Protein backbone atom coordinates (compact mmCIF):
# COMPACT_ATOMS: atom_id res chain seq x y z
CA UNK A 1 0.00 0.00 0.00
CA UNK A 2 1.52 3.31 -1.04
CA UNK A 3 2.24 6.06 1.39
CA UNK A 4 -0.34 8.39 -0.14
CA UNK A 5 -3.03 5.79 0.02
CA UNK A 6 -2.22 5.14 3.64
CA UNK A 7 -2.26 8.83 4.51
CA UNK A 8 -5.51 9.33 2.66
CA UNK A 9 -7.03 6.40 4.50
CA UNK A 10 -5.89 7.68 7.82
CA UNK A 11 -7.18 11.18 7.13
CA UNK A 12 -10.56 9.96 5.98
CA UNK A 13 -11.00 7.77 9.04
CA UNK A 14 -9.87 10.50 11.39
CA UNK A 15 -12.08 13.18 9.97
CA UNK A 16 -15.04 10.84 9.73
CA UNK A 17 -14.63 10.13 13.42
CA UNK A 18 -14.39 13.84 14.15
CA UNK A 19 -17.48 14.56 12.11
CA UNK A 20 -19.43 11.91 13.99
CA UNK A 21 -18.28 13.42 17.27
CA UNK A 22 -19.54 16.83 16.21
CA UNK A 23 -22.79 15.51 14.83
CA UNK A 24 -23.45 13.90 18.20
CA UNK A 25 -22.45 17.06 19.96
CA UNK A 26 -24.88 19.27 18.09
CA UNK A 27 -27.61 16.67 17.89
CA UNK A 28 -27.68 16.28 21.68
CA UNK A 29 -26.43 19.83 22.29
CA UNK A 30 -23.62 18.61 24.48
CA UNK A 31 -21.58 21.32 26.17
CA UNK A 32 -18.19 22.45 24.94
CA UNK A 33 -16.57 20.67 27.89
CA UNK A 34 -17.87 17.34 26.86
CA UNK A 35 -16.97 17.77 23.21
CA UNK A 36 -14.95 20.78 22.04
CA UNK A 37 -16.36 22.76 19.10
CA UNK A 38 -14.45 23.04 15.80
CA UNK A 39 -13.25 26.56 16.60
CA UNK A 40 -11.66 25.45 19.84
CA UNK A 41 -10.01 22.49 18.16
CA UNK A 42 -8.56 24.74 15.50
CA UNK A 43 -7.30 27.18 18.08
CA UNK A 44 -5.68 24.44 20.15
CA UNK A 45 -4.16 22.93 17.04
CA UNK A 46 -2.59 26.17 15.88
CA UNK A 47 -1.16 27.08 19.25
CA UNK A 48 0.14 23.67 20.27
CA UNK A 49 1.09 21.86 17.10
CA UNK A 50 4.78 22.55 17.44
CA UNK A 51 5.08 21.17 20.95
CA UNK A 52 2.94 18.19 20.05
CA UNK A 53 4.86 17.51 16.89
CA UNK A 54 8.10 17.40 18.83
CA UNK A 55 6.48 15.03 21.32
CA UNK A 56 5.23 12.73 18.58
CA UNK A 57 8.62 12.65 16.89
CA UNK A 58 10.16 11.74 20.20
CA UNK A 59 7.59 8.99 20.75
CA UNK A 60 7.98 7.62 17.26
CA UNK A 61 11.74 7.40 17.68
CA UNK A 62 11.36 5.41 20.89
CA UNK A 63 8.67 3.26 19.30
CA UNK A 64 10.92 2.38 16.37
CA UNK A 65 13.69 1.39 18.74
CA UNK A 66 11.22 -0.65 20.79
CA UNK A 67 9.80 -2.26 17.68
CA UNK A 68 13.24 -3.28 16.55
CA UNK A 69 14.08 -4.76 19.91
CA UNK A 70 10.76 -6.59 19.93
CA UNK A 71 11.41 -8.08 16.50
CA UNK A 72 14.82 -9.27 17.59
CA UNK A 73 13.45 -10.57 20.86
CA UNK A 74 10.52 -12.35 19.24
CA UNK A 75 12.81 -13.93 16.65
CA UNK A 76 15.14 -15.08 19.36
CA UNK A 77 12.43 -16.43 21.61
CA UNK A 78 10.53 -18.09 18.77
CA UNK A 79 13.77 -19.59 17.61
CA UNK A 80 14.77 -20.84 21.03
CA UNK A 81 11.21 -21.91 21.75
CA UNK A 82 11.31 -23.99 18.57
CA UNK A 83 13.93 -26.28 20.03
CA UNK A 84 13.06 -28.82 22.67
CA UNK A 85 16.11 -28.20 24.83
CA UNK A 86 15.91 -27.16 28.47
CA UNK A 87 16.92 -23.60 27.70
CA UNK A 88 14.43 -23.52 24.84
CA UNK A 89 11.62 -24.67 27.05
CA UNK A 90 12.53 -22.24 29.77
CA UNK A 91 12.72 -19.26 27.43
CA UNK A 92 9.42 -20.08 25.83
CA UNK A 93 7.74 -20.58 29.15
CA UNK A 94 9.01 -17.32 30.55
CA UNK A 95 8.15 -15.44 27.40
CA UNK A 96 4.65 -16.79 27.31
CA UNK A 97 3.89 -16.37 30.97
CA UNK A 98 5.25 -12.88 31.30
CA UNK A 99 2.75 -11.73 28.73
CA UNK A 100 -0.06 -12.81 30.99
CA UNK A 101 0.67 -9.73 33.05
CA UNK A 102 -0.93 -6.48 32.12
CA UNK A 103 1.63 -3.79 31.74
CA UNK A 104 -0.21 -1.52 34.16
CA UNK A 105 0.36 -4.09 36.85
CA UNK A 106 3.96 -4.81 35.96
CA UNK A 107 4.82 -1.18 35.32
CA UNK A 108 5.30 -0.31 39.00
CA UNK A 109 7.96 -2.98 39.21
CA UNK A 110 9.59 -1.84 35.98
CA UNK A 111 9.63 1.76 37.10
CA UNK A 112 10.92 0.71 40.48
CA UNK A 113 14.00 -0.81 38.97
CA UNK A 114 14.54 1.11 35.75
CA UNK A 115 13.38 4.56 36.78
CA UNK A 116 11.27 6.78 34.56
CA UNK A 117 13.77 7.24 31.77
CA UNK A 118 14.17 5.90 28.28
CA UNK A 119 14.82 2.35 29.43
CA UNK A 120 11.35 1.92 30.88
CA UNK A 121 9.64 3.38 27.84
CA UNK A 122 11.62 1.15 25.55
CA UNK A 123 10.96 -1.96 27.59
CA UNK A 124 7.24 -1.36 27.81
CA UNK A 125 6.95 -0.53 24.11
CA UNK A 126 8.84 -3.67 23.22
CA UNK A 127 6.80 -5.81 25.63
CA UNK A 128 3.52 -4.62 24.19
CA UNK A 129 4.33 -5.22 20.54
CA UNK A 130 6.46 -8.27 20.93
CA UNK A 131 3.74 -10.69 21.78
CA UNK A 132 1.82 -10.64 18.50
CA UNK A 133 5.18 -10.94 16.79
CA UNK A 134 6.15 -13.85 18.97
CA UNK A 135 2.89 -15.62 18.31
CA UNK A 136 3.28 -15.46 14.58
CA UNK A 137 6.96 -16.22 14.66
CA UNK A 138 6.52 -19.29 16.83
CA UNK A 139 3.80 -20.46 14.47
CA UNK A 140 5.99 -19.92 11.44
CA UNK A 141 9.27 -21.21 12.83
CA UNK A 142 7.87 -24.38 14.28
CA UNK A 143 6.02 -25.53 11.16
CA UNK A 144 8.32 -27.53 8.90
CA UNK A 145 8.23 -26.86 5.16
CA UNK A 146 8.72 -30.49 4.35
CA UNK A 147 8.90 -30.20 0.59
CA UNK A 148 11.91 -27.93 0.87
CA UNK A 149 13.49 -29.22 4.06
CA UNK A 150 13.41 -32.92 3.14
CA UNK A 151 16.57 -32.74 1.06
CA UNK A 152 18.57 -30.97 3.73
CA UNK A 153 17.31 -33.29 6.38
CA UNK A 154 17.98 -36.50 4.50
CA UNK A 155 21.48 -35.37 3.53
CA UNK A 156 22.21 -34.28 7.10
CA UNK A 157 22.72 -30.71 5.92
CA UNK A 158 19.96 -29.18 8.00
CA UNK A 159 20.91 -26.65 10.65
CA UNK A 160 19.02 -23.95 12.48
CA UNK A 161 20.06 -21.16 10.18
CA UNK A 162 18.83 -23.02 7.14
CA UNK A 163 15.62 -24.03 8.85
CA UNK A 164 15.02 -20.42 9.84
CA UNK A 165 15.82 -19.20 6.34
CA UNK A 166 13.48 -21.67 4.65
CA UNK A 167 10.56 -21.04 6.95
CA UNK A 168 11.06 -17.30 6.86
CA UNK A 169 11.23 -17.26 3.10
CA UNK A 170 8.17 -19.41 2.64
CA UNK A 171 6.20 -17.09 4.94
CA UNK A 172 7.65 -13.78 3.85
CA UNK A 173 4.28 -12.16 3.24
CA UNK A 174 2.89 -13.21 6.59
CA UNK A 175 5.97 -11.92 8.34
CA UNK A 176 5.74 -8.55 6.64
CA UNK A 177 2.08 -8.25 7.58
CA UNK A 178 2.82 -9.06 11.18
CA UNK A 179 5.75 -6.68 11.39
CA UNK A 180 3.75 -3.88 9.87
CA UNK A 181 0.89 -4.62 12.24
CA UNK A 182 3.07 -4.77 15.28
CA UNK A 183 4.57 -1.42 14.26
CA UNK A 184 1.36 0.26 15.35
CA UNK A 185 1.45 -1.68 18.57
CA UNK A 186 4.96 -0.44 19.25
CA UNK A 187 3.70 3.12 18.97
CA UNK A 188 0.74 2.26 21.17
CA UNK A 189 3.06 0.65 23.70
CA UNK A 190 5.35 3.63 23.85
CA UNK A 191 2.43 5.94 24.40
CA UNK A 192 1.07 3.75 27.18
CA UNK A 193 4.47 3.75 28.86
CA UNK A 194 4.68 7.52 28.54
CA UNK A 195 1.18 7.82 29.84
CA UNK A 196 2.02 5.83 32.91
CA UNK A 197 5.28 7.38 33.91
CA UNK A 198 7.47 9.17 31.44
CA UNK A 199 8.08 12.89 31.27
CA UNK A 200 8.46 13.01 27.53
CA UNK A 201 6.58 12.08 24.43
CA UNK A 202 3.00 12.35 23.29
CA UNK A 203 1.71 9.90 25.94
CA UNK A 204 2.88 12.28 28.59
CA UNK A 205 1.20 15.13 26.76
CA UNK A 206 -2.04 13.17 26.65
CA UNK A 207 -1.83 12.52 30.35
CA UNK A 208 -1.47 16.20 31.05
CA UNK A 209 -4.35 17.01 28.75
CA UNK A 210 -6.47 14.42 30.49
CA UNK A 211 -5.89 15.97 33.87
CA UNK A 212 -7.15 19.18 32.38
CA UNK A 213 -10.08 17.39 30.82
CA UNK A 214 -9.06 18.87 27.50
CA UNK A 215 -10.50 16.73 24.71
CA UNK A 216 -9.35 19.20 22.06
CA UNK A 217 -5.74 18.55 22.92
CA UNK A 218 -6.32 14.83 22.91
CA UNK A 219 -7.83 15.05 19.45
CA UNK A 220 -4.82 16.98 18.17
CA UNK A 221 -2.56 14.35 19.71
CA UNK A 222 -4.61 11.57 18.10
CA UNK A 223 -4.24 13.23 14.73
CA UNK A 224 -0.48 13.42 15.00
CA UNK A 225 -0.22 9.87 16.31
CA UNK A 226 -2.24 8.58 13.38
CA UNK A 227 -0.15 10.56 10.95
CA UNK A 228 3.13 9.27 12.27
CA UNK A 229 1.90 5.69 12.54
CA UNK A 230 0.90 5.85 8.90
CA UNK A 231 4.28 7.20 7.91
CA UNK A 232 6.13 4.58 9.88
CA UNK A 233 4.02 1.73 8.56
CA UNK A 234 4.52 2.90 4.99
CA UNK A 235 8.25 2.91 5.61
CA UNK A 236 8.28 -0.66 6.93
CA UNK A 237 6.12 -1.83 4.07
CA UNK A 238 8.45 -0.21 1.59
CA UNK A 239 11.49 -1.85 3.14
CA UNK A 240 9.69 -5.19 3.31
CA UNK A 241 8.81 -4.87 -0.36
CA UNK A 242 12.40 -4.15 -1.29
CA UNK A 243 13.72 -7.10 0.67
CA UNK A 244 11.18 -9.37 -0.91
CA UNK A 245 12.01 -8.16 -4.39
CA UNK A 246 15.69 -8.81 -3.83
CA UNK A 247 15.09 -12.30 -2.44
CA UNK A 248 12.64 -13.24 -5.13
CA UNK A 249 15.24 -12.18 -7.66
CA UNK A 250 12.73 -9.96 -9.43
Amino acid sequence: MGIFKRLLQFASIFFTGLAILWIIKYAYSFSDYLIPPPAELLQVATSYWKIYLAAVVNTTAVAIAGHFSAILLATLVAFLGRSGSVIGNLTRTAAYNLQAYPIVAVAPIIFLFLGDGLASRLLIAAMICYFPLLLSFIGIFSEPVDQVEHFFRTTGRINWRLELAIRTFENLDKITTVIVGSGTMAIVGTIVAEFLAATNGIGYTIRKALYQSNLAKILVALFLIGLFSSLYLSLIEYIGGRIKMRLMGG
Partner: protein
Amino acid sequence: MRLVCDNLYYRYPGTDTPVFKGLSFGIDRPGFISLFGFSGIGKSTLARIISGEIPPDKGRVDVETTGQILYSHNAERFPGWESTGHHLERVCDYGKRDLLAHLIEEYAVAPYLHSRYSGLSMGQKNRMNLIRYLVQDFGILIADEVLANVDEPTRNHILAGIKELLADRIFLYISHNALEVARFSRLVLVLPQNPEEGHTAIRIIDGLDEGTGQRTYEERTLQDRVYQLLRAASGMKT
Protein backbone atom coordinates in the same frame (compact mmCIF):
# COMPACT_ATOMS: atom_id res chain seq x y z
CA MET B 1 27.80 -53.15 0.41
CA ARG B 2 24.71 -54.78 1.85
CA LEU B 3 21.08 -53.94 2.41
CA VAL B 4 18.94 -56.40 4.33
CA CYS B 5 15.35 -56.04 5.44
CA ASP B 6 14.36 -58.61 7.95
CA ASN B 7 10.79 -59.52 8.77
CA LEU B 8 9.35 -55.99 8.51
CA TYR B 9 5.88 -55.20 9.79
CA TYR B 10 4.33 -51.83 9.23
CA ARG B 11 0.86 -50.37 9.62
CA TYR B 12 0.10 -46.65 9.27
CA PRO B 13 -1.29 -45.26 12.51
CA GLY B 14 -5.06 -44.93 12.27
CA THR B 15 -5.48 -47.56 9.54
CA ASP B 16 -6.66 -51.14 9.73
CA THR B 17 -4.62 -53.04 7.18
CA PRO B 18 -0.89 -53.38 7.58
CA VAL B 19 1.18 -52.46 4.52
CA PHE B 20 3.79 -55.15 5.32
CA LYS B 21 3.55 -58.36 7.24
CA GLY B 22 6.94 -59.96 7.63
CA LEU B 23 8.68 -58.56 4.60
CA SER B 24 12.25 -59.83 4.10
CA PHE B 25 14.83 -59.49 1.35
CA GLY B 26 18.52 -58.83 0.97
CA ILE B 27 20.82 -57.19 -1.55
CA ASP B 28 24.51 -57.89 -1.24
CA ARG B 29 26.01 -56.18 -4.24
CA PRO B 30 25.82 -52.60 -5.51
CA GLY B 31 24.04 -51.65 -8.70
CA PHE B 32 20.83 -50.43 -10.27
CA ILE B 33 17.99 -52.08 -8.36
CA SER B 34 14.34 -51.34 -9.03
CA LEU B 35 11.38 -51.55 -6.73
CA PHE B 36 8.33 -52.41 -8.75
CA GLY B 37 4.68 -52.94 -7.94
CA PHE B 38 1.22 -51.63 -8.47
CA SER B 39 0.05 -48.37 -7.11
CA GLY B 40 -0.61 -48.43 -3.38
CA ILE B 41 1.31 -51.62 -2.77
CA GLY B 42 3.84 -50.03 -0.41
CA LYS B 43 6.87 -48.97 -2.45
CA SER B 44 7.12 -45.49 -0.99
CA THR B 45 6.48 -46.87 2.46
CA LEU B 46 9.31 -49.35 2.11
CA ALA B 47 11.57 -46.56 0.87
CA ARG B 48 10.75 -44.46 3.90
CA ILE B 49 11.47 -47.38 6.18
CA ILE B 50 14.80 -48.16 4.58
CA SER B 51 15.87 -44.52 4.71
CA GLY B 52 14.96 -44.41 8.38
CA GLU B 53 12.24 -41.81 7.92
CA ILE B 54 9.69 -44.05 9.57
CA PRO B 55 10.55 -46.89 11.94
CA PRO B 56 8.97 -50.29 11.24
CA ASP B 57 6.58 -51.70 13.82
CA LYS B 58 8.58 -54.89 13.87
CA GLY B 59 11.66 -56.25 12.13
CA ARG B 60 14.83 -54.46 11.20
CA VAL B 61 16.76 -52.89 8.37
CA ASP B 62 20.41 -53.75 8.18
CA VAL B 63 22.68 -51.65 6.05
CA GLU B 64 26.38 -51.89 5.38
CA THR B 65 27.59 -49.06 3.20
CA THR B 66 30.28 -46.42 3.16
CA GLY B 67 27.94 -43.43 2.88
CA GLN B 68 24.52 -42.27 3.93
CA ILE B 69 21.13 -43.48 2.70
CA LEU B 70 19.26 -40.83 0.77
CA TYR B 71 15.59 -40.86 -0.11
CA SER B 72 14.31 -38.51 -2.80
CA HIS B 73 10.78 -38.15 -4.06
CA ASN B 74 9.02 -36.01 -6.56
CA ALA B 75 7.20 -33.48 -4.39
CA GLU B 76 10.39 -31.79 -3.30
CA ARG B 77 11.19 -28.14 -3.91
CA PHE B 78 14.34 -26.02 -3.84
CA PRO B 79 14.54 -23.02 -1.53
CA GLY B 80 12.95 -20.06 -3.28
CA TRP B 81 15.55 -17.43 -2.57
CA GLU B 82 18.26 -18.60 -4.91
CA SER B 83 18.49 -19.70 -8.52
CA THR B 84 18.64 -23.42 -9.15
CA GLY B 85 22.25 -23.01 -10.33
CA HIS B 86 23.30 -21.42 -7.08
CA HIS B 87 21.53 -24.03 -5.08
CA LEU B 88 23.18 -26.88 -6.93
CA GLU B 89 26.59 -25.35 -6.36
CA ARG B 90 25.89 -24.75 -2.73
CA VAL B 91 24.78 -28.30 -1.96
CA CYS B 92 27.31 -30.05 -4.18
CA ASP B 93 29.55 -32.23 -2.06
CA TYR B 94 33.26 -31.61 -1.98
CA GLY B 95 34.94 -33.28 -4.91
CA LYS B 96 31.77 -33.58 -6.96
CA ARG B 97 32.07 -30.30 -8.88
CA ASP B 98 33.12 -32.03 -12.07
CA LEU B 99 30.26 -34.44 -11.74
CA LEU B 100 27.87 -31.53 -11.28
CA ALA B 101 29.06 -29.85 -14.46
CA HIS B 102 28.76 -33.15 -16.28
CA LEU B 103 25.21 -33.78 -15.07
CA ILE B 104 24.06 -30.27 -15.93
CA GLU B 105 25.26 -30.87 -19.43
CA GLU B 106 23.87 -34.40 -19.72
CA TYR B 107 20.46 -33.53 -18.28
CA ALA B 108 20.14 -30.48 -20.52
CA VAL B 109 19.27 -28.10 -17.69
CA ALA B 110 21.97 -25.51 -18.34
CA PRO B 111 19.50 -22.93 -19.74
CA TYR B 112 17.52 -23.03 -16.51
CA LEU B 113 20.30 -22.51 -14.01
CA HIS B 114 19.33 -18.88 -13.67
CA SER B 115 15.68 -19.64 -12.98
CA ARG B 116 14.09 -20.19 -9.63
CA TYR B 117 12.76 -23.68 -9.06
CA SER B 118 9.18 -22.43 -9.17
CA GLY B 119 9.78 -21.21 -12.73
CA LEU B 120 10.53 -24.66 -14.12
CA SER B 121 8.34 -27.17 -15.88
CA MET B 122 7.63 -30.38 -14.00
CA GLY B 123 10.18 -32.44 -15.92
CA GLN B 124 12.81 -29.75 -15.40
CA LYS B 125 12.12 -29.81 -11.69
CA ASN B 126 12.51 -33.60 -11.66
CA ARG B 127 15.89 -33.42 -13.31
CA MET B 128 17.22 -30.59 -11.15
CA ASN B 129 16.16 -32.45 -8.04
CA LEU B 130 17.82 -35.67 -9.16
CA ILE B 131 21.04 -33.82 -9.92
CA ARG B 132 21.34 -32.44 -6.42
CA TYR B 133 21.03 -35.91 -4.97
CA LEU B 134 23.56 -37.37 -7.37
CA VAL B 135 26.23 -34.90 -6.30
CA GLN B 136 25.99 -36.09 -2.70
CA ASP B 137 28.21 -38.61 -1.06
CA PHE B 138 25.96 -41.59 -0.44
CA GLY B 139 25.95 -45.34 -0.21
CA ILE B 140 22.32 -45.87 -1.19
CA LEU B 141 20.10 -43.54 -3.16
CA ILE B 142 16.39 -44.31 -3.20
CA ALA B 143 14.72 -42.48 -6.07
CA ASP B 144 10.93 -42.57 -5.72
CA GLU B 145 9.37 -41.76 -9.11
CA VAL B 146 11.79 -38.89 -9.42
CA LEU B 147 11.63 -38.91 -13.21
CA ALA B 148 7.86 -39.40 -13.48
CA ASN B 149 7.39 -36.11 -15.33
CA VAL B 150 10.34 -36.37 -17.68
CA ASP B 151 9.88 -37.39 -21.29
CA GLU B 152 10.96 -40.89 -22.22
CA PRO B 153 14.01 -40.27 -24.40
CA THR B 154 15.54 -37.98 -21.80
CA ARG B 155 14.66 -40.42 -19.06
CA ASN B 156 16.26 -43.36 -20.78
CA HIS B 157 19.36 -41.33 -21.37
CA ILE B 158 19.51 -40.37 -17.72
CA LEU B 159 18.99 -43.90 -16.46
CA ALA B 160 21.63 -45.41 -18.70
CA GLY B 161 24.04 -42.76 -17.45
CA ILE B 162 23.24 -43.40 -13.82
CA LYS B 163 24.21 -47.05 -14.14
CA GLU B 164 27.79 -46.11 -14.86
CA LEU B 165 27.86 -43.30 -12.35
CA LEU B 166 26.69 -45.41 -9.46
CA ALA B 167 28.29 -48.72 -10.37
CA ASP B 168 29.69 -49.13 -6.86
CA ARG B 169 26.62 -47.96 -4.95
CA ILE B 170 23.04 -49.05 -4.59
CA PHE B 171 20.58 -47.08 -6.68
CA LEU B 172 17.08 -48.11 -5.63
CA TYR B 173 14.73 -46.93 -8.34
CA ILE B 174 10.96 -46.78 -7.91
CA SER B 175 9.02 -46.46 -11.15
CA HIS B 176 5.84 -47.60 -12.81
CA ASN B 177 7.50 -47.93 -16.19
CA ALA B 178 7.94 -51.67 -16.62
CA LEU B 179 9.96 -51.23 -19.77
CA GLU B 180 12.66 -49.09 -18.28
CA VAL B 181 12.67 -51.12 -15.08
CA ALA B 182 13.27 -54.28 -17.09
CA ARG B 183 15.93 -52.70 -19.28
CA PHE B 184 18.15 -50.92 -16.79
CA SER B 185 17.92 -52.90 -13.56
CA ARG B 186 20.33 -55.54 -12.45
CA LEU B 187 17.67 -56.76 -10.07
CA VAL B 188 13.99 -55.94 -9.70
CA LEU B 189 12.29 -56.28 -6.33
CA VAL B 190 8.64 -56.86 -7.06
CA LEU B 191 6.01 -56.24 -4.40
CA PRO B 192 3.15 -58.48 -5.50
CA GLN B 193 -0.43 -57.39 -5.38
CA ASN B 194 -1.99 -60.20 -3.38
CA PRO B 195 0.46 -61.13 -0.69
CA GLU B 196 0.08 -64.71 0.40
CA GLU B 197 -1.89 -65.32 3.53
CA GLY B 198 -0.40 -63.53 6.46
CA HIS B 199 2.88 -62.43 5.00
CA THR B 200 4.33 -60.15 2.35
CA ALA B 201 6.60 -62.03 -0.02
CA ILE B 202 8.84 -59.99 -2.26
CA ARG B 203 9.88 -61.51 -5.58
CA ILE B 204 13.27 -60.86 -7.00
CA ILE B 205 13.59 -60.92 -10.78
CA ASP B 206 16.70 -60.29 -12.86
CA GLY B 207 16.68 -57.22 -15.05
CA LEU B 208 18.54 -56.84 -18.34
CA ASP B 209 21.10 -54.48 -16.84
CA GLU B 210 21.48 -52.43 -20.00
CA GLY B 211 24.20 -49.77 -20.06
CA THR B 212 24.81 -46.87 -22.40
CA GLY B 213 24.77 -48.09 -25.95
CA GLN B 214 25.41 -51.69 -24.98
CA ARG B 215 22.15 -53.36 -25.64
CA THR B 216 22.99 -57.04 -25.63
CA TYR B 217 19.58 -58.65 -25.67
CA GLU B 218 16.90 -59.41 -28.20
CA GLU B 219 13.65 -57.44 -28.38
CA ARG B 220 11.91 -60.67 -27.50
CA THR B 221 13.83 -61.02 -24.24
CA LEU B 222 12.75 -57.57 -23.24
CA GLN B 223 9.12 -58.33 -24.00
CA ASP B 224 9.35 -61.49 -21.91
CA ARG B 225 10.93 -59.70 -19.03
CA VAL B 226 8.30 -56.93 -19.01
CA TYR B 227 5.59 -59.55 -19.06
CA GLN B 228 7.26 -61.40 -16.22
CA LEU B 229 7.42 -58.26 -14.12
CA LEU B 230 3.77 -57.44 -14.65
CA ARG B 231 2.73 -61.01 -13.80
CA ALA B 232 4.80 -60.93 -10.65
CA ALA B 233 3.37 -57.57 -9.67
CA SER B 234 -0.17 -58.83 -10.08
CA GLY B 235 0.67 -61.75 -7.83
CA MET B 236 0.50 -64.50 -10.39
CA LYS B 237 2.82 -67.44 -10.07
CA THR B 238 5.77 -67.11 -12.44
